[in-house]
């Protein structure tokens, strides 16, 4: 039926859907950040499956790059959320209308 890595590709895009859903339909910014982490993990899974399909190591190398980017993104994002919480004492996405977004 399906070889292991092709199944990996299917699951990675299912996880991507779930991450997208979390980011879109949740109000709490922290849970949105969790959604972004799911998106990045789905991308990692796709890279590792691709590395297994082609038999080369490039997929896993790029996976470590994505992991480094995810770490920096989470670090800065959470630092921002903390200072935002101190300013507005709430983490609801709706309260952030300063830029008329």
């Amino acid at each position, binding site marked *: 039926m*399906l*070889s*292991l*890595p*092709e*199944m*990996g*590709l*299917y*699951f990675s*895009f*299912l*996880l991507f*859907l*779930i991450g*997208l859903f*979390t980011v*879109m*339909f*949740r*109000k*709490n910014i*922290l*849970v949105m*950040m*969790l959604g972004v*982490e*799911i998106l990045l*993990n789905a991308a990692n*899974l796709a890279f*590792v*499956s*691709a*590395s*297994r*399909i*082609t*038999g*080369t*190591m*490039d997929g*896993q*190398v790029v*996976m*470590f*790059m994505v*992991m*480094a980017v*995810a*770490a*920096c993104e989470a*670090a*800065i994002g*959470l*630092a*921002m*959320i*903390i*200072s935002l919480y*101190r300013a507005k004492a709430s983490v609801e996405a709706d309260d952030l209308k300063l830029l008329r977004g």
Partner: protein
Amino acid sequence: MGFQEIVFFVMGILAVALGGCLATRRNPVSAAMLLISLMVVLAGMYGMLDAHFAAVAQIIVYAGAIMVVFIFVMMLLNLPPEELRFGTLTVGEIILTIAGIGVAVALGTKVGQGYLVSALQLSEARAPLLPETENLRNVAATMFTDYLWSFELISFLILAAVIGAVVISKRRHGHAESA
């Protein structure tokens, strides 16, 4: 359908189920704990895809470091469980969702997967340089030779993140604040 495929399929379904359950949790801390278990399941999947060092690195970096900060922040901002906002969908969001699902389904079909797999063949990646040694050495051999520039750029990215995190969390002078 060998035993490996069955186990991998079960882990995939478990991962997707954890993701789904996570998206609908009201209490953010339980959502974070579910994400940690999702990452551990993903580490198991990487192990089955012969990416052994990726599995261990996933647990050390994602589940062991990034989620610790999430748990710290969530615990200490004493957030009330949030009531889920499903009702008020704007028109734009509905169109976006349908378009997204449409593209996703197209990619999911046999044709889409074939396109994805064929796209991978085009890249002129080299065969692993140290084939029969540990997976870790192969990744390192490829990373430090072929991907030299991106590796150096990663260090500047992390440097920027360090300086950014310190600047953002330092109190702006003359700004009274309680924490």
